[in-house]
């Protein structure tokens, strides 16, 4: 890949911004659609294929892995528990839909299968894993969490409904958060 000034700036910025699975409190203005109330803050930041491949390329991922990553849609999710009770992140309670039809995100097993096919190194698998949103987390008061959810790259726009149980025993009610018309950004056409 030809290293250009623009590439380096993009890469540096992305490295600074990419959230880990633990993240930290973030400040407005947020870089994507968000919902904020007394219980939680949830921010979605859709990424372009170029951003994601640049990030993983800089972490030493091989070309075959980058080609697979380029075919998908990454959305970085940041959630903060602003309440004083446990909020349960369980992505099994999330619904993703395109034009009202439910869709599935690309799950960990599917990535594992792809990585097995190309014999991806353990270090790359580890890094990839730590950049994904956990599927289950008992978010403690004030605890943030972040990471990517990944969809098929053919999707242009989708809706997300995320439901969260609350309380130690999940009996303190449910939070119902909805996002509509989230874009999957496409790669800029080459001149």
């Amino acid at each position, binding site marked *: 890949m030809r290293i250009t000034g623009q590439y380096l700036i993009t890469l540096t910025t992305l490295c600074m911004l990419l959230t*880990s*699975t*633990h993240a*930290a409190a973030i400040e407005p203005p947020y870089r994507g659609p968000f919902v904020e109330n007394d219980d939680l803050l949830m921010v979605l930041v859709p990424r372009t294929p170029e951003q994601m491949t640049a990030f993983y390329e800089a*972490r030493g991922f091989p070309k075959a892995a980058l080609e697979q990553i380029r075919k998908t849609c990454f959305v970085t999710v940041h959630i903060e528990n602003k309440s004083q009770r446990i909020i349960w992140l369980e992505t099994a309670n999330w619904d993703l839909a395109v034009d009202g039809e439910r869709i599935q995100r690309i799950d960990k097993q599917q990535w594992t299968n792809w990585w097995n096919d190309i014999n991806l190194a353990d270090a*790359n698998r*580890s*890094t990839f894993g730590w*950049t994904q949103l956990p599927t289950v987390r008992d978010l403690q008061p004030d605890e943030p969490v972040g990471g990517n959810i990944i969809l098929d790259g053919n999707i242009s726009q989708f809706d997300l409904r995320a439901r969260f149980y609350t309380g130690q025993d999940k009996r303190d009610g449910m939070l119902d958060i909805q996002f509509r018309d989230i874009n999957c950004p496409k790669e800029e056409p080459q001149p």
Partner: protein
Amino acid sequence: MKTACSYLLCTCLLLLPGLSAPAETLPPGVMRIDGITAPALKLNDLDGTPYDLNATSGHWRFVHFWASWCGPCRREMPSIERMISALGESELEIVLVNTSETEDDVFTFLGIVAPDLLPLMDRDGKVTEVWQPRGLPATYLVDPEGRIQYQVLGGREWEKTEYLEFLRGL
């Protein structure tokens, strides 16, 4: 007499909570956990020197997992360096574990933000996986007997007084 007994009973009831152990006040993000035995941690540092957590018992250890690509880790690392400086001759041992990066990545990053720190290198991420952190960055406080007594959620401003006092009190 009845009034006196009622007064005595009320006084005793009021004093009862004071007889129990005072609740531990912890800085934000620090969670007390149940003293489980710390998993094995045997790695080489950035200079290739071997390290074994089990061989360093007898004092508290601050075990911190991080990666240079993670924004909160990048923001936190200079704070850890300032914390070490503020703690001075403390017996607390600082154990930094880089997760799944190369020497070049780590050297380049630390050279800019925290040049005095020397991390252990978990090149394939297997040791980090065994510790099962809730995410990166992650910090554990391991007691002199090798048990994890506290877990710290997310990146923290370690040089702040509340954290320094907590760490000095271990």
